[in-house]
């Protein structure tokens, strides 16, 4: 998909004033977090269950090439065709060719983040193959050309009036309605005919099991099972990191994924396909293509500092716990992936220069890292991106302004020496005090104005904690004791 990561600030400002977005942001992330906690509490020991999931993902990213080869070997031995694509363009063309060779006029699609990343729908439609998203939320975002608001509920914030209007225009409904269930049922009826006469389906992959060559899809709506069952030709698109070692690992990850994603203990459907249909079977695909997409990931893998991004299982748990996402929603991140997941993924997929606002829009509070069932250390990654940005600027001859560099040098000197820090605080207090209003510093007239475009600094109090502590030691406060 077309990236708009450069519009982070303006989109965030707009979304902060968007009433509908704000209503859902006040309900959804805390709601999902509570459901997640209830779901996780069904494990005899939730902490060790998360540790186990993190260990599985850690093993995957250490053994990835070997696991992918094993997966390929087993999938091929079961009759699947495995195709590799270096980048978005290659993946899109492989899939278009499959459709063209079979004179397919349309495909239905299961929700798949990798196909959003590579812009598969746009490519197919441009080349004359109609692509129908079938997940209800994705149907709406496709019709309205919106990026996903939330990875689990991509259109959950869209007002029913807007959905009704676009459905009327596209002939999905005959009479306007703002009833969510009526709107949903209309999509059911609309897509049933598409499923019934389908020649080719496209799905993503939640897990690819190396030991058996099995692809696993996790869903609630039944659109993926329809897409996997009805047509003669099935294309499953996966990124490199979807591979897991064994079916036992996959089962643990299914438990973890569902609980962290929607809070469910399991989704309505978990379908596990090993090869195309066998002789004598009446439905299921006659041919199964598995497209393994790199799109920058082998490079990410080679860099031992960034490799751990590939642990991510796209559950969305980090979105729900992030104080920034919970205020601005998914749109500002400008790409298929939003929240902390997008902040660590998008810079590597799209470039450090193009995504600067993403890795700066973070206080490094660490809530994402704490909740992450895959063991991604988001804050450390964001710091790496920030450091890389600075060194990139140096190479471009656009080094940091002298004053910013100087401030950074002084702060880092001071932060590693307590006496220097205390001295600095004493010196800076009167300066900062003059710049503060109502307890906040909203800008300073030198050097680092950029920093203040989306941040305020609390004013320095009259005394530091150390000073108060020292004073107290000299004049202890008497506490009344009741005996």
């Amino acid at each position, binding site marked *: 998909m077309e990236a708009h990561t450069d519009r982070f600030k303006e989109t965030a400002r707009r979304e902060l004033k968007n009433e509908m977005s704000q209503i859902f942001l006040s309900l959804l992330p805390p709601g999902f977090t509570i459901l997640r906690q209830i779901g996780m509490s069904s494990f*005899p020991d939730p902490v060790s269950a998360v540790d186990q999931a993190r260990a599985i993902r850690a093993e995957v*990213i250490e053994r990835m090439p070997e696991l992918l080869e094993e997966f390929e070997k087993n999938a091929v031995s079961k009759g699947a065709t495995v195709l590799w694509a270096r980048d978005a363009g290659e993946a899109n063309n492989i899939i278009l060719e499959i459709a063209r060779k079979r004179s397919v006029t349309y495909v239905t699609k299961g929700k798949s983040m990798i196909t959003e990343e590579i812009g598969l729908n746009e490519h197919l439609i441009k080349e004359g193959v109609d692509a129908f998203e079938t997940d209800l939320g994705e149907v709406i975002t496709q019709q309205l050309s919106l990026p996903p608001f939330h990875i689990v509920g991509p259109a959950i914030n869209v007002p029913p009036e807007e959905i009704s209007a676009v459905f009327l225009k596209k002939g999905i409904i005959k009479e306007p309605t703002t009833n969510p269930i009526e709107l*949903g049922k209309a999509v059911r009826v609309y897509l049933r005919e598409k499923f019934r006469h389908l020649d080719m389906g496209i799905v993503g992959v939640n897990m690819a099991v190396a030991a058996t060559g099995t692809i696993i899809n996790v869903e609630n*709506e039944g659109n993926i099972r329809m897409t996997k069952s009805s047509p003669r030709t099935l294309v499953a698109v996966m990124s490199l990191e979807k591979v897991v070692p064994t079916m036992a690992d996959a089962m643990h990850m299914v438990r973890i994924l569902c609980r962290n994603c929607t809070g469910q203990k399991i989704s*309505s459907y978990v379908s596990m396909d*090993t090869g195309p249909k066998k002789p004598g079977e009446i439905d299921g695909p006659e041919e199964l293509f598995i497209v393994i997409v790199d799109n920058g990931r082998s490079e990410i893998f080679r860099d031992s500092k960034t490799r751990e991004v590939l642990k991510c299982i796209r559950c969305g748990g980090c979105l729900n716990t992030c104080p920034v996402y919970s205020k601005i929603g998914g749109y500002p991140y400008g790409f298929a992936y939003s929240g902390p997941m997008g902040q660590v993924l998008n810079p590597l997929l799209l470039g450090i220069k193009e995504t600067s606002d993403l890795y700066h829009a973070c206080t490094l509070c660490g809530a994402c890292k704490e909740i992450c069932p895959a063991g991604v250390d988001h804050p450390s990654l964001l710091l790496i991106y920030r450091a890389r940005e600075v060194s990139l600027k140096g190479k471009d001859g656009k080094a940091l302004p002298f004053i910013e560099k100087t401030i950074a040098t002084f702060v880092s000197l001071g932060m590693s020496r307590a006496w220097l820090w205390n001295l600095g605080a004493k010196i800076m207090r009167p300066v900062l005090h003059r710049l503060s209003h109502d307890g906040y510093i909203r800008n300073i007239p030198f050097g680092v104005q950029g920093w203040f475009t989306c941040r305020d600094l609390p004013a320095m109090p009259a005394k530091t904690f150390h000073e108060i502590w020292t004073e107290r030691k000299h004049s202890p406060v008497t506490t009344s004791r009741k005996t």
Partner: protein
Amino acid sequence: MHAREEILGRMKSAQPGKALIRPSTQPLSELSLSREQMIQRFTAELSTQTGVVHQASTREEAVKILTEIAAAEGLRSVIATGYNIYGMGLRAFGEANHITVNTLDDLPDREALREIAFTADAGITFADFAIAETGTVGIIFNRHQPRLASIAPPVHIAIIPIEGLYPVYEGAIEKVFSNADDIPSQFSFITGPSATGDIQAVQFKGMHGPLKMIVIFIMGQG
């Protein structure tokens, strides 16, 4: 160079990571459930997803339950995976209740199956497994078990012999995947009807798949 070799080559040129040890885990508490408790758990979990669970002590009782369901749901035509699912005699059931029963024996090809599956009032299928952990039904799809019968019609009725009841997913997975030469083309876990909450977080059942799910356990002759 081919994409495959290029991608794998780049990854293999990376520094090898450290060897990892898996932490120990506590066994799932469901593993200690008795058969009675497993049935209770299965029923409670599937009920929270609006699924309905029946127990039939004999095949005859199962047919009686099916007849009651057919009347309550107003079924006129069903797709069944066979006339003789677990020896239930569905041809006679259809004739007695004026219900058109189509099975694989009547369907020559994919087109015919799709025609029937997308217009039937219900799909009646055998199911290989029931998992107590989450009230989940496990179905092996093969030449006796078409995929569309359990996903296209608005009602899915699954007949499960009680011997297929396991405490956790792994029980079924080991059976289905342990013999590498005999892995089915598809194995699915089904937990309740299809569902969504994608518009304004309003939850409802019956998005693309069934609106209702009914399980009939056959408890055996004992």
